[in-house]
């Protein structure tokens, strides 16, 4: 499906877009620590946008709460920095309301896999046409280092002084069983791969989930994200078809087991180009208008039904 441009924002057409357009002119209140992996996500995202060909005016970035949620402060676009765990429901409604917008949601592992886990499952299931970037630093950063859903078993923190008795969440597998149609993992230590993957994810027509391994040097000094990683697409060792659900599932299992053994695998794990996005499904059943709904409010000629014409059933 070609992305239709909303009449509300015709800004992009013909314009040359460079990554600097996505740097806010306003000096943000600095909140990220020196050396934080979040800077790498920002950089990769800024690199991806010109590739995709979208302007800041056409882009809506919705974040949750956490250090990761501060992404909007450093990224110039329309934005909503919302509430803990709820970026996805906000983002997907915006996409339904105006399919012409490029909608990106972002947040941390606590935000997305913990408090927002239910929304993650359902947004993937519905396969909304949007990108979801999870800054996975295996820790709660902003609230100062508590155990997160991706912290390894045995992880000690002030809230888990005896070491976590819980197995970590398996985000890639969860995304796959929930229905995401693009699933990848990348890491802050490889900006080239990160930019490529984000570009692909944003261009993908469906729910693209990117588990982005980031380091939190402040609270999670021993996290695996520092160790060298392997790109599964570049390595001869791994031979699987990213379009095959079964093979992808097995590969994800292996990846998720190995992460906590110290071997970091990144790359594309599943791509389904056939599955229609939720918006397309809804349009095809007549449950959703063909034209971006938001545009109607700017169209002085638009027809607006009245309840008076619906009253027959009540007479």
């Amino acid at each position, binding site marked *: 499906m070609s992305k239709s441009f909303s009449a509300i924002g015709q800004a992009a057409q013909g314009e040359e877009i460079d990554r600097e357009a996505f740097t806010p002119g306003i000096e943000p209140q600095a909140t990220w620590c020196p050396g934080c992996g979040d800077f790498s996500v920002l950089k990769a995202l800024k690199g991806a946008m010109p590739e995709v060909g979208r302007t800041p005016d056409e882009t809506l970035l919705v974040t949750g709460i956490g250090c990761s949620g501060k992404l909007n402060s450093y990224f110039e676009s329309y934005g909503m*920095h919302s509430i803990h765990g709820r970026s996805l429901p906000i983002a997907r409604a915006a996409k339904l309301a105006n399919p012409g917008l490029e909608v990106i949601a972002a947040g941390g592992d606590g935000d997305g896999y913990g408090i927002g886990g239910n929304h993650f499952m359902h947004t993937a299931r519905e396969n909304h046409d949007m990108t979801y970037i999870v800054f996975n630093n295996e820790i709660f950063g902003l609230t100062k280092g508590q155990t997160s859903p991706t912290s390894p078993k045995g992880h000690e923190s002030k809230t888990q002084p005896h070491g976590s008795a819980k197995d970590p969440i398996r985000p890639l597998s969860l995304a796959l069983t929930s229905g995401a149609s693009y699933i990848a993992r990348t890491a802050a230590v490889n900006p080239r791969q990160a930019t490529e993957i984000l570009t692909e994810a944003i261009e993908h027509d469906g729910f693209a989930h990117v588990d982005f391994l980031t380091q939190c040097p402040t609270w999670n000094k021993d996290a695996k994200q520092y160790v060298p990683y392997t790109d599964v697409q570049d390595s001869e060792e791994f031979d699987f078809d990213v379009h095959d659900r079964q093979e992808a599932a097995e590969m994800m299992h292996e990846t998720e087991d190995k992460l906590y053994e110290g071997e970091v695998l990144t790359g594309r794990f599943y791509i389904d180009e056939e599955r229609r996005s939720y918006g397309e499904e809804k349009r095809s059943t007549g449950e959703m208008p063909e034209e971006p709904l938001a545009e109607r409010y700017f169209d002085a000629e638009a027809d607006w039904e009245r309840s008076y014409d*619906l009253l027959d059933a*009540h007479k």
Partner: protein
Amino acid sequence: MTGEELIWRIAGGSGDGIDSTSQNFTKALMRTGLDVFTHRHYPSRIRGGHTYVEVRAADHAVKSRGDGYDFLLALGDSFARNPQDGEAYYGNEEVKPLSENLDELREGGVIVYDEGLLDTDEVEDFDERVEENDWHVYPLDLRSLAREHGREIMRNTAGVAATAALIDMDTGIFEELMADTMSGEMLETNVEVLEEAHAEVSEMEFTHDLEVPTGSHDEEQVLLNGSHSVAYGAIDEGCRFIAGYPMTPWTDVFTIMTQHLPSIGGISEQVEDEIAAASLAIGASHAGVKAMSGSSGGGFALMSEPLGLAEMTETPIVLVEAMRAGPSTGMPTKPEQGDLEHILYTSQGDSNRVVFAPGTVAEAYEQSREAFRVAYEYQIPVVIVIDQKLSGELASVPASHFDREPNPDLGSVLSEEEIADAPHHASGTFNRFRHDPEDGVSPRSIPGQKDGRFLATGNEHTPQGHIEESPDNRVAQVDRRTRKLESIREDLDDKEHSNQTYYGPEDAEHGILVWGSQQGSVEEAVDRLNEQGESVKMLGVSDLMPYPKEDVTAFLESVDECLVVEMNITAQFRGLTQKELGRFGEKMSSLLKYNGNPFEPAEVVEGFDIQVNGGDEPPTAQTRIEPAAGD
């Protein structure tokens, strides 16, 4: 209350079609020119369990259920018995459509029951009570009759036909109504059952003299409930996005919207939970669509944080809170006005919202429209409060009430040309949240518009939307957001028609204050009291936040004392009034009810008597008086 009226009750098992049958009967009465009003009683069960619907029809305006009723059609509960072994599922439920409904049947009333399913031997003291109350009893084998001509389920039709024959109504209107909703064999057999039953009963000898009143309307009427009114108000105000999660009784508004939106170019989303639902409304509204969500008590509790986000980011949304008895899951099918404080004060911080509580089915339409207008003009969340009673009761309203122009205007939103001229930060970022607007409203842009970029954040923020905690900025932003409520109050006060409802003689000595769904019963009580020689008027308050201080102050100053009627135990609305006005504590006493049933006019009359004529005894076992402060 003078004039003629008929109150008919149909009772049976939940899931036996009592609702749709009574709706058709109500419509038929409306089409003969009568004003109608229904009251629903149902258990929190899907199939089986005693349920009834009461229909009041009169040649004058009816605003509540009456006290007692005239005609019982007891159909029997087809789910009470296991068809396999004939064993009762739930004790003696089978006779409940008969046994449970006798207490309120008026002297001289009529009983029709299905002798195919009900046995009067199982109803305690049935014959004695019949004699004592001079009831006229007509046992009819409705089940066999329906089976003979069609299917057993058509015993409802047979029952309606029997009713019509007994009160001298023509079956023509029923046939027309059936033709509206069915066709083919289904229609044919139903009509056959209808005619057969009518003919059979018409030939019987009647001992009663109850008849359907005659009435006429000056203009066309429509029959609808509070949920419809809220939904239609939303549609007319250009709302084209709804997200929700089912919870009784909010589900009604949600379903009605969902039935209409796709066909008029809108979007409805049933989502994973109420936090998501409210968040979707925020996302859609942020993207430039008029959006709503809603729930009932427990679900609304989950919306508390998104509600705060909408306020902080100044994203307009409308939420419906359809109250039922709480706390927790409380009584899912029973009304109460116990969520008021929850709705007013939920969400952290000095948060503000607008709260409207319509008092009648007709008002629900206007106030729903008003909710959207205010939300979008002032960029603030608005909550429409209804309850299980108002959401489900059917009333006849002149069709012309809905004959208005749509208003899809997005409110304080700039066009791209206006954005170009609007103040921007030196960096090119749009000043979305300016400190200076006098009315508190800083116009917004919509994602996709050229050069309108801003950040909407739940954190305190600068005019451009960037996180900022400096004292000066904090004060400026809090002051501005708070100013909006004052502007809204001025706006509402300036309007030609107040949302508040005045009823009764202007110079009355005594007052009754009421809010929400209990207004109709109070209006009827006011009429009766004045007929009895008392001097009473009513103020039905719909604006709960910002509170209509002037209206209520003037009302309270004009009366010697005032009874505040509401359905909760803690007198929440009276508390709000005292808090807002800071006085009148000594003038107000409360009449409270919290047993799951709405006020009947007689209870209000009785409560008023006790307040005015002394005594602090509870008027009935089911209501209670809370004396004025300092008493």
